[in-house]
């Protein structure tokens, strides 16, 4: 290939990797703006209006308050629920008797739709932080539990047998063999739990809250502030995307031994 051809090829690559994915979103934005401006679409705010609202809310600092509150609920609920799910998953994965005593009960609770508990939770905890954190905790716990349990149970028998022959200590057996072996499955649980976390939080905040992104959105409905509602939706999607990206980074780091992630490491 000549230099020119190589350069041409390089430009094509840049286009395909960095620009091509954005073509459709830009077209959609333009269509959206035009149809709102010309009055073809009603009961919706234009992208421009949403943007100015976002700027106003940012400048007033209000947006950070709501994001902060929602993020706090999500994080605390995730840590408690994920932690409990992980601990239970490890206990039942490692010990048959623990599994015999608790697994059936856990499975029973798992099948309760968390959102159906909202009325009860409001009676118990009111509309305060405890209610939201409780719901997120309950929603997050089970996917982490199931995937941790399953991951530990499906660690390669051959490796466990090998560890037994080599007389490795119990601690090393757990940290060097069982936990890394279960990690791919645990991380699947974490990513799934992050999805559950946002859905639970959104519903909880929309139904019973006096702060947070969901509250901001419901409050705006009363005054027909469609731009604020759309802003709230966008905020949730951005937060969701950030959470997912963090989970992916965690995967890349913890599973860097895995052939799937190997070309990333070697390149």
């Amino acid at each position, binding site marked *: 290939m000549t230099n020119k051809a190589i350069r041409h090829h390089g430009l094509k690559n840049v286009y395909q990797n960095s620009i091509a994915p954005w073509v459709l979103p830009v077209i959609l934005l333009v269509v959206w703006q035009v149809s709102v401006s010309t009055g073809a679409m009603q009961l919706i705010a234009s992208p421009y209006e949403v943007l100015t609202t976002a700027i106003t809310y940012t400048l007033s600092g209000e947006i950070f308050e709501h994001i902060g509150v929602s993020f706090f609920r999500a994080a605390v609920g995730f840590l408690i629920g994920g932690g409990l799910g992980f601990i239970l998953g490890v206990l039942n994965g490692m010990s048959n008797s623990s599994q015999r005593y608790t697994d059936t009960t856990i499975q029973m609770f798992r099948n309760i739709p968390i959102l159906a508990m909202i009325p009860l939770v409001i009676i118990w905890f009111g509309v305060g932080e405890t209610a939201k954190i409780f719901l997120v905790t309950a929603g997050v716990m089970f996917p982490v539990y199931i995937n941790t349990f399953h991951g530990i149970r499906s660690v390669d028998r*051959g490796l466990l047998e*090998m560890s037994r*022959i*080599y*007389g490795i200590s119990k601690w090393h057996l757990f940290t*060097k*063999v069982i936990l*890394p072996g279960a990690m791919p499955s645990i991380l699947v649980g974490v990513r799934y739990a992050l999805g559950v976390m946002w859905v639970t939080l959104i519903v909880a905040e929309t139904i019973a809250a006096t702060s947070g992104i969901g509250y901001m959105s419901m409050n705006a409905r009363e005054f027909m502030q469609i731009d604020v509602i759309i802003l709230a939706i966008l905020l949730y999607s951005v937060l969701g995307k950030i959470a997912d990206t963090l989970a992916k980074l965690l995967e890349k780091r913890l599973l860097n*031994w895995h052939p799937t992630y*190997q070309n990333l490491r070697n390149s």
Partner: protein
Amino acid sequence: MTNQQNGVQLRIENMKKNFGKTEVIKGIDLQIDAGEFVAIVGKSGCGKSTLLRLIAGLDEKTEGTIYQNDTILSKQNNDARVMFQEDRLLPWQDVLTNVGFGLQLQNDWQKGAKQLLQEVGLENHASKWPSLLSGGQKQRVALARALAANPRLLLLDEPLGALDALTRIEMQGLIEEIWKRNQFTALLVTHDVSEAIMLADRIIVISEGMISYDRDVPLSRPRERSHPVFKEIERELYAELLEESHKQQTFAM
């Protein structure tokens, strides 16, 4: 490594093993001298791997006794190390740490592990993931790991079965060399007749859970595949293994 690292002596008496109602080992008596290299040959399902697993303490015997240096072997055999057909390396640990596993990751294991890697010629691969190694290299790492605790008994369960012919010959050389140097007792389960003759002082054939053949290999080392005695033993072994299947066929009719 000194001569104090001599291998163990094994005495197996009336060994039986059932899996459910199936008798896999039907009564084996066997004595193996310290430092001896014994190959166990047989067709798949004859019970040869089971015998090895019983000696390693991985499975529990149904009946019989194993004496190791005249003491009865209870559950786990701490003097023994096993090399399997699969490498059984931890894919999430680098090569060095995998070897360190043989040293139970205890005090200063890195130094010992590096030395072992050098012995199997992989000192330049210490920080790699196992998945980046070839099949032969992985088995070398597994061998290094098995040697880490200076085992007095090395149990080899078809360790070269999944390798290509050339790598296999190379690995046979390596195993022989290390066995000569470390003087442990070695027990090799294989279905490769020439591998058995190449490595072993003595060859045993197991068929249907019993010893059907037992002979010494009176060849000096290193051995040549073209040696007439090598050829003769090879013929004899094939005859033994094939006759046995012939018998089975006649029974079936």
